[in-house]
Every structure is written in C-alpha cells, then in structure tokens.
C-alpha cells in the first residue's frame, strides 16, 4: 500500500501516536430517483458533506447533533456499512476506502458497533448464547465458544446461567448488555456506539455508561460515541465533534467545548438543554427560530446562516446577514489551540449569544 497517511488535521492533542481511525473529506449523497425502470436522479440528500476527523487509540470521540445531521451515516461510513460518495477512510494508517467485502472481513474483527435499540438489534429467535457467540462462529475462532460467551456475559454483568434464554426474557438494560457483549466478543480495537443509551431509562442509562467506561479501561478500547444527549456525551467523551446538516461545525476537547463554545450553533444547542434546577433561571435559553433546513437543498454558504443569531447580530448586505455567511462555507479552522470551528464570526471567550442577538 503506497497510499500516503492521513494528514494530521484535527488530531487529538493527547497523543502523538498514529490515529486509529481517520477520515478525510468524507461525503455521502443519497440519490432521490424518479421512475421505475429508468431511475433518473432528480435530487440528492446531502447526508454527510466533507467530514474530516481522526480518533486516537484509547480515545472517545463524541459525535453530537440533532436528528438528520448525519451522525449515524458517518458511523456507518466509518465501518464501511455504506460506501462513501467521496473521501477516504483510514484504519491504523491503511486506506480501507476501496476494500471489497472479503478484504474487509478480517478488519471487521477490529471494528464493532453497538446499536441504539436493544429490542430491534437482537434476533428474537436466537438465544443469548447464539447471539453473543455469532462473532466467534463467523470468524471461526479457536476454542470453546460457550465458555468464551459465558465469560463475556459475566464481564458485562449478565448471569452466565442465562446462556439459553431468549432476548425477550431480559429487560431493556440487560438487552443492551447483550449488545455490548456481542460487540466485545472478538476484542475489537474500535467500537462505534450509536445512541447506545437513548432507549433506556435514566437509572439504567447510568449503569450502561459506567459499564462502557470500565470496558474501555480494561480492554483499551477506542469509542466513537454518537448521541443527541449532550449530558451523556460530555460525561463519556474526551473530544467532541458537533454536526449540523452533514458537516462538522466544531471540534474541541469536551470541557472546552462545553465551557467555551465557538460556533453559534453549539452555543444554542447547549443552551437549549434543560439544565435542571439551580442555574436554570440564570442561564437564558437561546431559542433558535425555525427548523433545520432540508438536507436535499441545503442553504448556500454556511448551512446555519438562516437561523444564526450571531450572523444577524453582525449584520450585512444580504437580508441583514454578512455576505460571506450566505455565500461561502467557512472552513473548519483552528480558532484556539486544538479547538476548531467552521464559522466566519466565531464567538469570543465569554461572549454570550444572547447579547449578540440583541445587539
């Protein structure tokens, strides 16, 4: 393989080691076709647009955003469950973008996924033993599968004696533990968690989050953790990428992103979360107007400009908005050290969007 390694864009400052996963300019369009025989493409859903990031070994990268922002599509592209329209994917320095199914297969042991819905992601006609044992059978590993499965079940907090039970005999939290055990079976390096706790009650959610953290320490796992719940992501992620309409609009260390957001969208998103009691009365919510635009026909320039309070505060010739916001997509540039935001007018330290909106 003579491919050049991924450029060190958006690397984690924590390690200088080679990233485990890197994507460069990743883009995915889904065609919308008309006609039955001659399927003419009439439009495209811009699901993921020019996404670049890296994940270092042992790190947890959080991907947050609202529904339809492309976070799950990014995850699927990463695992090659979907073919990208453009862009490249590197795993341990190797370009895996164009590998075919059979050449992907050995790599699949290294990258696994935990799904959102523990009711839909487990086959109701298989026992736990069959579900968790499936990776061993598929990859034809040595040794006794049953023993390995029971060890795994024990590790994720399930009773190994329940080996022969079906998934409907378990509660939601226990089912998610089954999903975790299955992902863990082949000792992967990377686990992509797609909303793993969204379907669970809060008291159970904490159990699963703790389990995921313990497993990460024990098995030196790398996580790409997708969630729409900003509290959950702050809790588990080292670094966070915020997505809006298929693009990454901000990347930073978790604490920095939450304490000093640079992109107006991040700031609005954080303020929209009910804070619970205490400072709730003090921190005013920034209520964004309107809805997320359709990804079929994303707005030109910065995709956030039609709803952006900062752009409105800055003002300009195009409907009261600055020209560059409406004309040109801002690059994901470094605003501060290891803190990137795709915005022409990033927020200054301590600048409140509320003030900006009213200025």
């Amino acid at each position, binding site marked *: 393989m003579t491919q050049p390694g991924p450029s060190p864009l958006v690397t984690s400052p924590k390690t200088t080691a080679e990233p485990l996963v890197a994507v460069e300019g990743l883009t995915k369009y889904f065609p919308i076709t008309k006609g039955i025989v001659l399927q003419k493409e009439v439009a495209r859903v811009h699901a993921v647009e020019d996404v670049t990031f890296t994940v270092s070994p042992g790190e947890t990268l959080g991907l947050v955003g609202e*529904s339809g922002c492309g976070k799950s599509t990014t995850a699927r592209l990463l695992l090659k469950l979907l073919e990208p329209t453009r862009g490249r994917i590197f795993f341990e320095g190797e370009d895996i973008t164009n590998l075919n199914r059979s050449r992907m297969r050995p790599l699949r042991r290294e990258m696994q996924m935990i799904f959102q819905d523990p009711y839909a992601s487990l086959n109701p006609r298989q026992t736990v033993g069959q579900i968790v044992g499936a990776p061993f059978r598929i990859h034809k590993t040595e040794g006794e599968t049953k023993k390995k499965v029971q060890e795994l079940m024990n590790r994720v907090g399930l009773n190994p004696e329940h080996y022969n039970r079906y998934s409907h005999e378990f509660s939601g939290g226990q089912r998610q533990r089954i999903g975790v055990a299955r992902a863990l079976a082949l000792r992967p390096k990377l686990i992509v968690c797609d909303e793993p706790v969204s379907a669970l009650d*809060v008291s*159970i959610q*904490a159990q699963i989050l703790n389990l995921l953290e313990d497993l990460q320490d024990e098995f030196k796992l790398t996580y790409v953790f997708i969630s729409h719940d900003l509290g959950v992501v*702050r*809790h588990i992620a080292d670094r966070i990428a915020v997505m809006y309409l298929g693009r990454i609009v901000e990347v930073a260390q978790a604490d920095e992103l*939450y304490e000093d957001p640079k992109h107006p969208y991040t700031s609005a998103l954080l303020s*929209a979360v009910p804070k*619970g009691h205490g400072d709730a009365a003090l921190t005013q*919510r920034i209520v964004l107007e309107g809805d997320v635009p359709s990804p079929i026909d994303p707005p030109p320039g910065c995709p956030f400009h039609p709803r952006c309070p900062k752009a409105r505060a800055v003002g300009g010739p195009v409907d009261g908005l600055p020209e560059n916001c409406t004309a040109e997509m801002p690059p994901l540039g470094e605003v501060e050290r290891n803190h990137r935001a795709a915005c022409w007018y990033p927020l200054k330290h301590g600048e409140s969007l509320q003030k900006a909106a009213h200025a």
Partner: protein
Amino acid sequence: MSAETLLEVRDLHVSFPTPDGVVKAVDGLSFSVHRRETFGIVGESGSGKSVTNLTALGLIDRERAQVSGEVLFKGRDLLALSKEELRRVRGKELAMIFQDPFACLHPFYRVGDQIVEAILCHDDIPKKQAQQRAVDLLGAVGIPHPQDRFRDHPHQYSGGMRQRAMIAMALSHNPDLLIADEPTTALDVTVQAQILDLIDRIKNEFNIGVILITHDLGVVADVAQTVMVMYAGRAVELGSRDEVFDNPQHPYAWGLLESIPRIDQKGSRLIPIQGSPPSLIHVPPGCSFHPRCPHRFEPCDKDVPALADRGSGHPDACHLSVEDKRRIWNEREALRKKAVS
C-alpha cells in the same frame, strides 16, 4: 396555592387483569392540580404516569381494567360520568397532547381540516368561521404563514410544527386543563426548547393548568411549579420544584438526580440505581423501591410507607426519619463532590 383547584385525584387505583396476573399500574394515587400551575409528573417507563392521565380522560377500557377512586375535575367525578357526558368534557374543557406528533395527525387529511373537525366537534358554528379560528390558532402557536400552512398535509410539517399543530388543536375550545404526555420526547433539543416555551406561554395566555408528564427531570425542573415523582404506580415524593430539587427526601429521587449526566459538570463516575424497575405484576411488598434501595431497614419490606410530610415540609413516601434523610443526603452529596474534584 390559592388558585382554583382544577383536578383532584383521590386514591386512584388502576389495575389490568392479564393471564399472567394482575398488573397494578396505579396504586393509591392522590394529587391536585390548580389553575396556572404546571404540574410535572416524573418517573421511568412503567411507573404509571401515563395510565393515570389516560384514566382521568376516560381513555382506559373500563371493561378490561379495574378502576377505583375519584378523579374530580372542577368538582365533578370524571370516573362516574357516562361516555356521553365524558365526551362533552374531553377535548373541550380537558385537552391532551401526546408524545408522538407523527402518529397523532391523520396523514391523508390537511392539518387545518383536522383542527376544524376538532372545533366543530363541540361548537355548532359555520364552517367558514371554524376555519378562521383554526388559522388564528395556528398563528397563535407560532406557525408562520398560517393561512398557507392550513392547507398543508402533515408530512409537509416538521416534527416541531406538528407538535405545535397538536397544541393548536388542544387549545381550540379554550380548555381549563391541558395534559401533555411526554410532549417533547420525540423532538430535538432545540425544538424541545421552542415547545416548552410555547406551553409555558399558552399556560399564562389562556389561563389554564398544565399536567406535564415526562421522564426527563431537566424538563420538569425547567418548567414545572409542582413535581410528583412516581415509582411502580405510587407517588414517592410530591412538592414544589424547589422543595423536590433542593431538598429531595426519597432515595429513589436521590438516585434519579445522581444518575443523570449533566452538561454543566465535568464527567465524574455516575452513581446508577442498582437493579431494574420491578414487574408490576409482582410488586415487591412494603415499599416497592426497597429491593433497589441502599438505605433500606427493618420496616421497608413489610409496611407500605404512606405519602406524608415527615417534617421536611413536603410529603414523601419513605420510612426513614427526616434527620436520617438529611444525614444520608449530605453524605451522598459530599461523596459526589469528592468524585467531581
């Protein structure tokens, strides 16, 4: 609170006989809701929060369920009304919005026509007038260009707009009480913020009471004045928002507050509640929370603790004395602070 009492639930029991046994969905629940109050009901799935309100609205099949107790709405017992009488109250004085705005609007009919239908259901007015009122309502809930959007089908609306349309429909007869069952759970956070603001605004504008059912403590803390925490069909704590969040009394409420990852705090280890919620067919004897409670002692697995003020200023259902609770809560708080720093 001196405001008019709109809804008073007294000792409500709802259970469903099934082949596996009797499911005790609601077990002796009492509370009251006043005008201009947002009454938040929090609990996990299966805690009985939705069944309580479906029963109040007469939406539970009374032939399949065993219901006892009283649900007094402006002095009248809703449980004693005939179907016909109930129909005159429901949708008119008592309105409801549901969790999933995708499932609540008929996909074949225009949104405006569905609101007109709701209006004509209770008011005998010319259709033209009803249409005008529907347009006004859509405008009142913040739908831009209501005149045009009136003629759209539901699929042309976004999730947030559908929920707004549902709220418009609920408001069409100036109800006294609005029951919102997880109104923002299916929505994104930025849209959730819009809808919560809207509910708060209409509560004041239309001078109504709101029951907000949710599993999200953050939502309740943001918008509710009174909070009731439910567990396995019973209320375990009831008080004003400040009382419940500043001075929580029940170990289950502590567990809930501690197990939520917060966005304004650095990630420390979460303290989950052990175990999982009980089956409502085999509710544990005594306090139904005792198998998961780290502070259980002698009477917990025998006596059901009543919901009563044990000296803290607001009622809770836990056998521990108020002094013990204060001590334990302070210890837990200290532990948590240590974990953060």
